[in-house]
């Protein structure tokens, strides 16, 4: 190979390489823009706000006292579910919610780190003691969903399974008439 040829081949190599680098950068920027677009336009994003709570006092006062746990129909027709995780169960162990309704899940942990995952949905959040987790959800199909703890929480972790029961909207409204907090524990 003459030195002129060698020089030319170096140029070709560099040009091909630059092209590939440009493609790689476009892929990366494209992915970030896609995430930004979906986050802003479709409002799909991880939990935006940080809220704190004192796990050693949650059973005494505040929104996570036992009598306030479960599902409640708000005045605007939405539903709020409050739950806690502790070694090795959720309270309420069976959550009842209506279909086709915007639902806000608010939950925290009473001891160690747990997680809530509702199988067959995108509902998936950590429960970190000291902090409140909030998830927006909406079920389109009625039925039972399993809700395992998805984070290791010590030796009984494998037994920590809750349940979500999605019922018809009007049935839920009937049951909510009496006020109080709804759950399907024992049903």
């Amino acid at each position, binding site marked *: 190979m003459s030195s002129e040829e060698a020089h030319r081949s170096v140029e070709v190599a560099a040009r091909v390489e630059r092209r590939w680098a440009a493609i790689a950068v476009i892929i990366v920027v494209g992915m970030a823009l896609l995430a930004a677009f979906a*986050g802003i336009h479709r409002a799909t*994003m991880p939990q935006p706000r940080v809220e*704190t709570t004192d796990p050693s006092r949650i059973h005494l006062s505040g929104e996570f006292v036992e009598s306030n746990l479960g599902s409640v129909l708000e005045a605007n027709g939405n539903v709020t579910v409050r739950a806690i995780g502790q070694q090795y169960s959720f309270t309420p162990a069976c959550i009842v919610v209506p279909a086709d309704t915007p639902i806000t899940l608010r939950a925290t942990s009473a001891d*160690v780190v747990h*997680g809530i995952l509702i199988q067959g949905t995108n509902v998936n959040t950590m429960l970190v*003691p*000291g902090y409140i987790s909030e998830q927006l959800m909406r079920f389109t199909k009625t039925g039972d969903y399993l809700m395992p703890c998805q*984070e290791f929480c010590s*030796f009984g*972790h494998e037994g920590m399974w809750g349940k979500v029961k999605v019922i018809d909207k009007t049935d839920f409204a009937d049951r909510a008439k009496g006020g109080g907090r709804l759950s399907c524990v024992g049903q």
Partner: protein
Amino acid sequence: MLVNRKLILAHFWLAFAVFGVALTLGAWQMFIRSPIGTWLSNPELYYRSLTAHGTVMGYVFPTLVAMGFGYAISESALEQRLVGVRWAWAGFWLIVIGSIMAVIPIALGRASVLYTFYPPLIGNVFYYLGVVLVVVGSWIWVALMSVNLRVWRKAHPGAPVPLAMYANVAGSYLWAWTAVGAALELLLQIIPVAAGLKNTIDAGLARVFFSWTLHAIVYFWLMPTYIAYYTIVPRAIGGLVYSDSMARISFILFLVVAMPIGMHHTFADPQVGAGFKFIHSAFTALVALPTLLTVFTICASVEIAARLRGGRGLFGWIRALPWDNPMMLALAFSFVMLGFGGAGGLINMSYQLDASIHNTQWITGHFHLIFGGAIVIMYFAIAYDLWPHLTGRELIDVRLIRTQLWLWFIGMIVTTFPWHWVGILGMPRRMAYFDFGDPAIAPQALSVTFSAIGGFILLTSGIMFIVILARGMRAPRVDAGPYRFAIAVHQSKTVPVALNTHALWVALMIVLTITNYGYPILNLALGAGTSVPAVYVGAQ
């Protein structure tokens, strides 16, 4: 020029011995929680095993491989006797002592907190101290790599640092800084509680500290593999590196952008706001860049080898590759697994998609495919390539080596593909037992069974690997000659200062860590009232 062969062999042998133990535990775990295993009446044993498996595979095994390989690179690439051999042995023994110190409480069931620690769960203090000793031992290696390069630079002013050493030192700096997150968590938060000096801990802050380590540690594991891609594979298959400077840029990019991205592990966490989560998500997209560049450069380097061997045509050259060469085979397997694993990784780091697979078996499948598959198969290849130079003996049975690599590849696919699938079905991680009789869980039974079978294929392959190396210690003597690294097609006499030194990039790495982590950490550390009571493992 490999002088301190005993030192390097000690690192490799300890690495592969602990790897063998942890691999056996892993296979047992796959079996016991699958439908073919019988119900484990004491689930606590599962979590002991899981803690040991994770601690060894995450902290001890890859660190020892990186250290042993690093010493080999330093001596052979710089052609200079290792400076500070006594310190190197001190680092090695610290890792031995640390590992023993950590494993005793694990075996006694006093530290079943998993390798990710998970405060406010708190285990026995000696477990954490053991992990700290392992890290301190590895920091000695970091310092030695830096010192050796400095000594070489003095003797060769202005000369380009050999690519292998340049990358090796970049990897060591990455590790030094990466480990700081977990070190802060251990020293400031966990150890005072484990030692009984305090009884409350901020779990949210601990998770953020750990995320600092948790992601970049993956790139530390990856470094030996990428060094092998660039500097061993082309030489072993008779090719040349397509571009020396692109290789340097890739390693620099890892150094700079591997760090400030760890919070994509905390998307589902309540203690970090959405703004920093998005920043970390975008930076994680950036870390795909060095891998995309590497895939191009290595494929091009392999094509050069094929064409030098007479390969023709747009794709016809692939047939001309030396497929009977274990290095070629390992590279191909590694790339296939890197491709699938990387695609899965893009889903994990995605701001939106993460919610559908967070903390499911998908994640376990993902990192086993990337780390256990793409990365570890190259550790095997590195060992095979170095072994004759370290022992002065030949690895005769190339067919057995090929079988071992095939089995590892097949085993990893059979294990991890169904693993990903059950994750999509919502199967949670880290459970000792599943009730496959439940109609909602029953559909996962078949996939979990396949994964368990894959686990035993991997165990078989792992045993073969250790047997091959052990037999290599007694094989006929051979003069393997000096250990060489691949050279570039256009080897330039000079390299720009920025691509020949690390200072600028280390500074950028630290600055980006501070911008991306400083505010969330300070915010959590200074915000009062989020410390919670510790829950001591084994105390209930």
